[in-house]
């Protein structure tokens, strides 16, 4: 897909044409994951697009098979016991058997031996996957993700101070590379979760936790906060854009630049942006913010969504969002700033120029 395409709705993602092929690989060719076309989706844990998710999906399919077999055995026994005696209902007095030896054998075989064997096998598979998930070679790229009420700040640290990139709610990663993601929280506990690529890891205040992403093909996945974090926990999504390394490098270069220069069509919007209070929270590098940050908007127009993957980044949605942020995402930290309709459109035009 074209990285320059801007207007994508949160619903428009890759629908994962070949499903779960990594899962099959992880399982060593087991034919379990073959038919799961219904599992496809930009936020599905079974639509695997990365190494870690593939390993976990492989574990899931194994666990599923084991569970189905055990369940069938137990239910078959249950039905057999019912069928055996179902005709003999009616009044009957209690029997007091002298020995329970046969019954105890049931308990020993079914209640102790069967689960012990099954659990030992399951545990072995689990520990193998766990070891694989937690053994890491050096990172090709390190990204910092900071959880905030209720959006994601994303930072790429370069060699030089000028190389630093700050963006929000849209994490770009190169395919085939090992990306180390360092997670911190600025306020409460959140959880970073991109089911297509990796299991979740919490962002805990006062700690730095780490997760790894390794996408094996280009595509856009959706992630979402998975630890309840208050009023708008629901609307704390983000996108992960996996793109070939060259495209990624191009994107990163673009992001490193200062925001686009204004021309006569956008100047009025910029002035309004600076004077109406927007710039108090939103940086447009090189202009920094005096206040505590909202999302950095330096290259806002290059992002696909607004309000933490709540709305597609279109002119109409953007205007609606600025006009009434509390109506769309009640309780979020962005206040409604009264702007005359013409001024609102000017601000939108300016923001749309920030490629």
């Amino acid at each position, binding site marked *: 897909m074209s990285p320059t395409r801007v207007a994508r709705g949160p619903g428009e993602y890759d629908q994962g044409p070949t499903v779960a092929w990594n899962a099959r690989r992880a399982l060593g060719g087991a034919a379990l994951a073959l038919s799961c076309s219904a599992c496809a989706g930009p936020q*599905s844990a079974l639509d695997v697009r990365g190494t870690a998710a593939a390993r976990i999906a492989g574990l899931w399919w194994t666990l599923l098979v084991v569970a189905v077999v055990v369940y069938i055995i*137990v239910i078959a026994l249950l039905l057999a016991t019912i069928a055996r005696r179902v005709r003999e209902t009616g009044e009957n007095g209690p*029997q*007091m058997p002298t020995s329970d030896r046969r019954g105890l054998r049931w*308990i020993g075989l079914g209640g102790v031996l069967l689960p012990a064997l099954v659990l030992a096998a399951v545990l072995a598979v689990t520990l193998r996957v766990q070891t694989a998930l937690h053994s890491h070679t050096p990172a090709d790229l390190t990204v910092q993700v900071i959880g905030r009420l209720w959006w994601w700040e994303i930072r790429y640290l370069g060699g030089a101070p000028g190389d630093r990139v700050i963006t929000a709610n849209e994490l770009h990663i190169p395919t085939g590379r090992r990306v180390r993601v360092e997670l911190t929280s600025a306020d409460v506990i959140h959880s970073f979760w991109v089911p297509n690529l990796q299991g979740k890891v919490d962002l805990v205040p006062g700690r730095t936790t780490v997760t790894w992403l390794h996408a094996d093909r280009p595509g856009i996945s959706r992630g979402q906060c998975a630890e309840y974090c208050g009023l708008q926990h629901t609307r704390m999504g983000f996108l992960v854009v996996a793109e070939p390394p060259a495209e990624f490098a191009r994107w990163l270069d673009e992001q490193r630049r200062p925001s686009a220069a204004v021309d006569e069509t956008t100047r009025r919007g910029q002035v309004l942006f600076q004077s109406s209070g927007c710039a108090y929270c939103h940086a447009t590098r090189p202009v920094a913010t005096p206040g505590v940050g909202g999302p950095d908007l330096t290259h806002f127009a290059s992002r696909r969504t607004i309000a933490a993957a709540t709305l597609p980044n279109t002119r109409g949605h953007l205007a609606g969002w600025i006009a009434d942020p509390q109506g769309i995402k009640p309780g979020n930290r962005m206040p409604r700033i009264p702007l005359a309709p013409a001024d609102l459109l000017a601000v939108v035009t300016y923001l749309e120029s920030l490629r």
Partner: protein
Amino acid sequence: MATISAPGERDQRVRAFERVWSEPRGFIGALRTINNIPIAQRYMVTAFAFFLAGGVQALLMRIQLGTPENTFLDAETYNQLFTMHGTTMMFLFVIPFIEALANYMLPLLLGTRDLPFPRLTALSYWTYLFGGIFLYSSFLFGAAPDGGWFAYVPLNGKEFSPGINMDFWDIGLSVAEVSALGAAAELIVGILRMRAPGMTLRRLPLFAWAMLVAAFMLILAFTPLIVATAMLEFDRKGLTQFFTVGHGGDPVLWQHIFWAFGHPEVYIMLIPAVGIVSHIVQTFCRRPIVGYRAMVASLIAIGAISFALWAHHMFATGMSVGAMTFFTVASMLIAIPSGVQVFGWLATIWSGRPVWTTSMLFVVGFIAIFVLGGLTGVMVAAAPFDAQAHDTYFVVAHFHYVLIGGVVFPFIAGLYYWLPKITGRLMSERLGKWNFWVMFLFFNLTFFPMHVSGLMGMPRRVYTYPAGLGWETANLVSTVGALGFAAGVLLFVINFFWSRARGRPAGNNPWGADTLEWSESSPPAEAQFPYIPVVRGRHPLWEQPSLRPADAPAADSLRELDAAPTGWRGGLCVSMREARPLAIVHLPGPTIWPFMLSVAFVFLCAAALVDSGLLAGIGAAVAAVALCGWFWPARTEAAAIGEVGTEPRDRRLPIAVAGPRSNGWWGTMLLILVLVTALTTLVASYFYLAPRWVLSELPDLTETLLAITTTAVALASAGAVRWSAGGNTPALVGRRQLGLALGVMLGLVLVGMLRMLYGYHETTYARATDAQGSFFFLFLLFQAIVTLLHLVPTAVALVWAWRAPSDPRGLAPAANAALIGYFLVFSWGVAVATLYLAPRWFWPSE
């Protein structure tokens, strides 16, 4: 007491016996009644009402989630609903309902007239009722709790939840927790001490075993929760900094304590349900359960293992691989004793002759659902898979399979089984079968699709979701299923009212069951078991032609209790293992004080909520009056002592007043268990946080010496009280008086020294600015409570020793104060070592 021969005299005596056990009438009488049956009925009705309230909340949430981007509920309301749904179902429905059923059924099952502390039962009920109303009153103020039933910090700290919503949760819940502890103590002492003679532990019905395990778990799990909610509330009030990053606190500490409670909690709910199932299977398969001992052992194993797997709720917080492996193994291990239970039932059905009543249908449905929930439980125990499944609808599906399938289905089965005993009328079997199939099918329709939506990436606790992620169908099906499931619950309610109006009379034993409750009338009389039954096997009604004593000596020892005593309420205490008659216990009659004490709690709660000194003063005053009234010497007890005597003589049972023979002593031991658990929680929390602390000021030498001296004073006080116990004979009254007087004086000195320690760093401890200071605050508060628990009974014993040295009732507070004295010394030692000595060890000053 003379043997009674004339039938007229005998009738008269039975009537007198019935009169002494009858409930008081009228409105005030309803507040004074403490009989287990009316209290348990209120408990059950209240719990069921909360179940319906929690169900309505669930339906509203399901309607909201039926379609993507629905606007039926706003975010705030939705968050309040899921918080209250979880809180209600856990704390206001399941636990109280279990306690209700146990309070009703256990005395009947065990063949005793009442549980050992009837006033405590009444107190637990009123406290639970008022705590629940307190929590729900938050809706009236538009301030319902909205931080999740697990109340993670920092989200629920003052900074991010400045409203009083979570104060309602914290305070209301503490009250419900205290009530649960009271009920647990009641059940443990009841099961261990008040059974029919001959009902040895090996003959104990499985429901009683299950309740015994669950009640111990309640104490070990709810105590840390009380400590944690207190810490959270102190943090919210700005007094302490336990969970604040940057002040030496850590939000993950909350998760550790909360789940150390939260996971055993699941099994606290499950184990009694499993016990109910065993009774039903046994009765309707017309044979004893297969592998009784294996069933008991696996109940205990489940209870023990459940304390070792809390952190599987925290796999996502970034644990070490080693820790994850440990908790994965422990979580999987619990499947084995659960498997023993399931195969025990299967073997019983296989070798029995099952009768397919509604109860049995619910049991079969339970097995089918519970096994599936157990299998998904093994899945989420695997840490790597949990990384995807955690906090998604997959987990929602998993625990509803376990909690509705594993707990609610057995409850309904148990109600179909036991309601005929409670109401005296049979339920409709035809309606019951409809009831089962509707609930079973719609249950699966509701919760099975959630496995799918969870795997497809749908997180929990979201008030809506965007279209296009593949979640629409699963959610719509779940919503339809939930409405159908609600209809199933409604069918049960209809059946209940139908049976009350039209049901056939049940008779004593409609199912031909084996346990003692079926020997009593349905519904049971206010005065249960006028003649104490004697048990000679696990299945008395199947194995014994008569429940009367088999031989003359046994009959003699129980004669004292044949439709007697008639002037006061008396019950039988037996030895713990062999259930040999030990003593007669005096049980209190109707009293208003439990009700008044719970009213005092309401004032104290409201005071804590709005920081009002006036309300706190009223509450404290009412509580003081109520406690005095509660412990005021009962005239009936004096009469009982006069009638029976406190020492055994010529094969006649004595009355138990003090010491290990009395229930009060056992209750005190359980109180000490609660205190030990709380102290352990404090110490564990301290050392969990300690490595995070940069060296703050060490307690200086004078302060440390003062603290050590305090321990010595505690030792002296406890020793004096213990020494006084040697003076129980009339000749040594002087020693008793002296010992107790010394105990009181030293106790007062201790209070003064405590005040000095607290004041030593008044500026920092009174409003602690870091986590280390917060622990001084909390430990010293805890020590103050323990010191008072020692001092007050000592003072009461001293008054007895002074005013009525010959009255044996005065020995009880002295004996209990001596017991608490041991703990007092221990806890002072631990507190001093932790607060004053450990810092010198770990952080030697530079």
